[in-house]
C-alpha cells in the first residue's frame, strides 16, 4: 500500500472513528517501542486485551499529562530522544502551526515517527500526511476499514479499503465493496 507505513522521521495526523485501528496497525508495521501520550481526564482508554492482536502490550507505554502543553512537550522530548520508534499523540484541542512544526523538527532529529490523533479539522498545516479513517460495514468481514489520505505533502491523495488479519498480523488491501466480483455490496 502506498504511503503506508508512514514516512519515518515525520509527523502525521489521523482522525475519524477508525483512528485507533489505524494507529495500532501503524505501530505493528513499524515495530519497536511505542509511546502513547494523552490527556489524564479522558475516560476512554485503550485496552491491552484488545490491541494485543496488533502489538505486544509490553511494547507500549502510556504517558498521561494534564494539559496540551505538557502533551506536546512530552511528545517532542520522546521524538527527539530516539528511544521510541513511534509516538502517538492524542490531542483534544487544535494544533497550531508552531506546534505542528516543532513536532516535525523533533521527529526529524530523533528519526522516529509521530502520529497525532486529532479531532476533525483541528490539525496543523505542518503535517506530512493527514488520514481519515473509518470502519466500513461488510457482511462478510468484521475488520474492513476505509482509509482516505486527505492531505499529502509528497504525493497524491487516495482512498483504500483495508482489513487487518489478526492471525498473521498483516494488513491486506481489498477492492471497494461495489467492485468486488460476486459481491452485491452492503445491503441497506
Amino acid at each position: 500500500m502506498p504511503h503506508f507505513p508512514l514516512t519515518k522521521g515525520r509527523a502525521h495526523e489521523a482522525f475519524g472513528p477508525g483512528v485507533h485501528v489505524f494507529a495500532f496497525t501503524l505501530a505493528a508495521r513499524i515495530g519497536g517501542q511505542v509511546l502513547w501520550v494523552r490527556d489524564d481526564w479522558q475516560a476512554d482508554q485503550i485496552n491491552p486485551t484488545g490491541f494485543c492482536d496488533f502489538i505486544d502490550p509490553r511494547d507500549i507505554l502510556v504517558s498521561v499529562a494534564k494539559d496540551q502543553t505538557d502533551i506536546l512537550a512530552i511528545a517532542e522530548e520522546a521524538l527527539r530522544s530516539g528511544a521510541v520508534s513511534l509516538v502517538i499523540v492524542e490531542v483534544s484541542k487544535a494544533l497550531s502551526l508552531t506546534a505542528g512544526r516543532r513536532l516535525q523538527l523533533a521527529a526529524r532529529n530523533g528519526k522516529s515517527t509521530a502520529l497525532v490523533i486529532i479531532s476533525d479539522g483541528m490539525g496543523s498545516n505542518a503535517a506530512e500526511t493527514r488520514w481519515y479513517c473509518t470502519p466500513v460495514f461488510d457482511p462478510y468481514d468484521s475488520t474492513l476499514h476505509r482509509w482516505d489520505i486527505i492531505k499529502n505533502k509528497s504525493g497524491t491523495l487516495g482512498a483504500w479499503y483495508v482489513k487487518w488479519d489478526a492471525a498473521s498480523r498483516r494488513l491486506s488491501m481489498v477492492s471497494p465493496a461495489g467492485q468486488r466480483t460476486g459481491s452485491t455490496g452492503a445491503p441497506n
Partner: protein
Amino acid sequence: MPYADARAFCPDLQSRPADPARDQRFLHILRRWFTRYCPWVGIEGADGLVLDVTGSSHILGGEDAMLADMRARLARAGLSVQIGLADTRGAAWALAHHADGVAPPNDMLGALRSLPVAALRIDDKTNIALQRLGLRKIGDLVTTPRAPLTRRFGPDLLLRLDQALGAQPEQITPIAEPPHYAVRMTLPEPIGLLNDVVAGAERLLIQLCTKLKAQEMGVRVLCLTLRRVDQDHQQVELRLARALRDPDRIMPLFKQGLEAVEAGFGIDQMRLEAVQLEPVPIRQINYVTTGQKDKLNDLITRIGTRIGLENTLRFLPADSHIPERSFLIAPAAYSEPEGGWSTLRPRPLRLFPPEFIAGSGSQPPKWFRWRGMSLTSARAIGPERIAPEWWLNDENWRLGVRDYWHVQTKQGRRLWLYYTPQNPHWFVHGEFA
C-alpha cells in the same frame, strides 16, 4: 515487680511500651556521637557503649576532665549514665555496672576487690553457685586456689577474672561507619552562571558515583541543595526511572532541574545527596541488555521531571475475566514488563465507562442512539455472558451478570454492547474500531 506495686511506691510513675528496636537505634546514634571523644567506640550488650580512650583523653585535658565533660553533656540531654574507667575492658565494665568510678592505674585488684562476683560478666548460674560457696566478692575469688575453680566452673570464670585484672588481653571492636551517600562542596566565591553550577554539580556527581560504585549501589532519588549567599537554599530533586550510578547518564537528566534554579546573589555551597538507593550489582555489559533499554529509561526519567514519574504507565496482565480488570496499569518506573497476554474472544480496542442506551429485550436493539449518532445494527455476535466476581464488591457490577454483544452497525461503527438480564438495560462498553 508488677506495675501496680511499683505505682504504690512511686505514684508519679509513668509507663511506656518497651521498644527494643528503637532503643538499639538510639544506642547506635549515641555511639556515633561518642566518636567525638575517641575513634574506637563499640556497642556493649543491649545498653552499653565501650570506648578505647587510650591516647585521646589528653585532648580534653585528662581522663577526669573527659568524664566530667561526658556527664555534663549527657545530663543536658536528659540521659543518666554510669561510667567506669579502667585499664582493662573487664574492669571498666565492672565499675560501670557496680561502682561507677575510675580505677587507679595498674591497680585493678584494688578497685575491684570489694565488688560482687557478678561484676565479672559471668552468667547467672555461675553467679548463684559462687554465692552458695560463699565467694561473694571478687577479692574472695582471687584468693581461692584456681585449679578447683576451673574444675568446677570451667575455664570461663577465670578467663573473665584474668581479663578484668589485665592478665589476659581483650579487644574492643569498633563498629564500622555505615557508608554515607552525600557529598558537598563549599566555594570560595559565589557562583551564579548556569554553566558554573552544572560544572559544580558534575564534580559532586562524579564523587558520589565513585562511592556508589564501590558499594555496588545505584541511586533512585537524588537531591541537590544549593545554598545561596543570603542563607536561602534551593533544592533540585531528580527521580530516576531506574537505579543508576553512571554520572554521564545522570548529568543530562539533571540539567532541566538546574535551569530552574534562581541563583540570587550567588551560590556558595552545594550538597548532593542520594536520598533513595537500590543495590545495583556489577554486571557484564552487552549490546542486547543495554543501549535501547537505557535510552528508554532515560526518556521515562526526563518525562517524569515534567509530569511526575508515576504518570508514565505500562500495562500488566491480570488474571480476571472482567474486562476492566483483565489488565493492570502500573507506573513504568516501578514495574517490569510482563508477557502472557492472551484472549479467547476478541476484545474492543477502546474501553470506556458504560454508557446507557435505550433498548429492550435480550436481543441487541435494531436501532439505537449513542453519542448523538443514530445507529442501525446490522450484525450482532453474542451473547457472551460475564458474571461479576462475587468476592469483590464492585459498584459497577451491581446490575448483575452481563451479556456482551459484538454489534456491527450499518454506519460502520463496531461496538461492544451489553445487556443486564437481571436488571433489563442496555449499555455500550467499548468500541472495536
